[in-house]
């Protein structure tokens, strides 16, 4: 199959993720959107590795997965803590750290 299709799919997924991050207020949804962006990047890496016939892209995808897993642990912990104290998962309400 044409690898460009994979790249197009990755671009679509990334755009949807970015859009979610920017427009949604719920922290969990924003978080999921970030995950979607990461996986879109993974898809791009893997398809690129397939096209060039090397393993570099696949290794990069594994790295992204590991980092994403770690990020999920820290990010969810923060979201849970914020929800406990404020009874809300809206990221617009947690805006005290500013000028």
């Amino acid at each position: 199959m044409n690898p460009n299709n994979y790249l197009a799919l990755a671009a679509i997924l990334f755009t949807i993720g970015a859009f979610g991050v920017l427009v949604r207020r719920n922290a969990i949804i924003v978080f999921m959107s970030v995950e979607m962006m990461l996986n879109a990047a993974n898809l791009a890496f893997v398809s690129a590795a397939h096209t060039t016939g090397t393993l570099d892209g696949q290794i990069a995808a594994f790295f992204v997965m590991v980092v994403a897993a770690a990020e999920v642990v820290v990010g969810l912990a923060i979201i849970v803590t914020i929800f406990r104290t404020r009874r809300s998962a809206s990221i617009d309400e947690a805006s005290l750290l500013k000028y």
Partner: protein
Amino acid sequence: MTAALIGLPLFGAAVLLLGGRRTNAWGHFLAVLMSASSFFVGVALFTQMIGRPTESRAVHQHLFDWISVGSFKVPFDLQVDQLSMVFVLLITGVGTLIHIYSIGYMEHDENRRRFFAYLNLFVAAMLLLVLADNYLLLYVGWEGVGLASYLLISFYQHKPSAAAAGKKAFVVNRVGDVGLSIAVMLMVTTFGTVTFSGVASAAGSATHSQITWIGLALLLAACGKSAQFPLQSWLLDAMEGPTPVSALIHAATMVTAGVYLITRAHAIFDLSSTARTAVVTIGAITLLMGAYIGTAKDDIKKGLAGSTMSQIGYMILAAGLGPVGYVFAIFHLLTHGLFKAGLFLGAGSVMHGMHDDVNMRHYGALRTSLKITYVTFGLGYLAILGVPPFAGFWSKDEIIRVAFEQNFWIGMCTLIGAGVTAFYMTRMMAMTFFGEARWEKGVHPHESPLVMTAPMMILAIGSVFGGLLLKFVGNIEGWLEPVTGFGVGQNGGIAGKVLMPATLGVIALGAFYGWTKYGRRPVPVVAPSDVSIFTRAARADVYGDALNEAVFMRPGQYLTRALVWFDSKAVDGTIGALSAAIGGLSARGRRIQNGYARSYALSMLGGAVLIAFVLLLVRL
């Protein structure tokens, strides 16, 4: 031995200043003791000096090397020669008498210890000035006496006028000191040495203009210290200090330092007739100006200050006449030191009896209640007039004679000065001791205690016999010959024979006029205001202060104001505007940190898109 002369009073000053209040009880006795022992050391050195033959009388004492840079060396050396010796005796002798007098005069002053500390400091500095054997060390003493003078003029520091007078004296003296420092620097570049002997022997090899410039710079220095025109304005204000200070510093010793400097640097002045002419001109102007100011002053101390200016004018003039004049300049300096100190102490005694009132229009008829003061002041009066055989006659008459021998018009200046001196001194005498009593209410004049009158009596004896002793017993002309390079004055033929009666006639005329104006007629208690323009000018010190204010002070003030304006507006303004701009910009910039995570995300995305876009552009 020589170092002890300076060391003793310096030690006294150090003990009194560092010891603080603990020395209050006995401080003044220590100061008197130190000054007196310095005098006795001086007498001992003097007897030793007499015992030696003329050519080996000058003694050097090497203390240590002060400055040693390559081939340029300035030793810390003291030198006692015949000229220094007479100064040492005058400074320590009159100084000790005034120390004793001050015990009584300053008795009720709570800062008496500080006063005596400063007096001792002054004596030490003045001795360093006259004992130094090079110009740089002389400069140290020169500044030292300037400091002591400043501290003592503004001694009553709670009085704004005294504080201002001290500052004025300090600033005006600085102008003169610039002259001395320039002279020293010129000596270093021209001769490579600053010792008296080195400069004297090298002077012949320098060019005429170099010598003239050094001479003029030295003259500027002498003008500052000796209150000569155009730097005379500080001396009249210096009378704000306690009266013993006026007697010691501003009449007998420090103000004569300029005469000493010119005499000491005679090797320079001998070679430059231009510099000598300048010296004579300055002396003639000041002697007339001081006498003129003295005629209109109602303040007894300011009258005497004008007189001091005038008498130092005589000395400077004599010193400017060249080798024939030096010896008479020094001679007059010595006799003046005796009688003027006596007159000032007499004025202090009158003030002491009159509740510190200095206005002579409030005096009158004091000859009965202040008998001792009257007699001692009267003897000083006869001495300053130059009535034979009192001290002033021998010295002043010689100056007038030498001046006439040099130039008729200079001679006329000195002769007129003598007449005016007789006038204002008679006026002072008549207003203070004669006429009817014009005392303020509640003033009961009383004679001062013995501790004050004794020094006055000794100085009065000096005013009577000082001239005779110095001329005939001391043979001052022969004594100073090795220093000034001029022998016993040959008696000036016909001029001398006609001149003495003429001088005495002028003096008698001045005194007679003063007596008819102030002795026979009653003196108004309030100074008359409908007076001629000449009287008004004399009352305003010939507008010396107004001139200084218009020419130096105002433009200086405008300049500093303009600089302050430029600094605050232009320099500070630029920096201030820059910082305000940065501050405002950052205040706006930090609003970006609004706390909304999604807004940060948008920034990141925007940045990433921008970078991607740029990369694409570069690729394409």
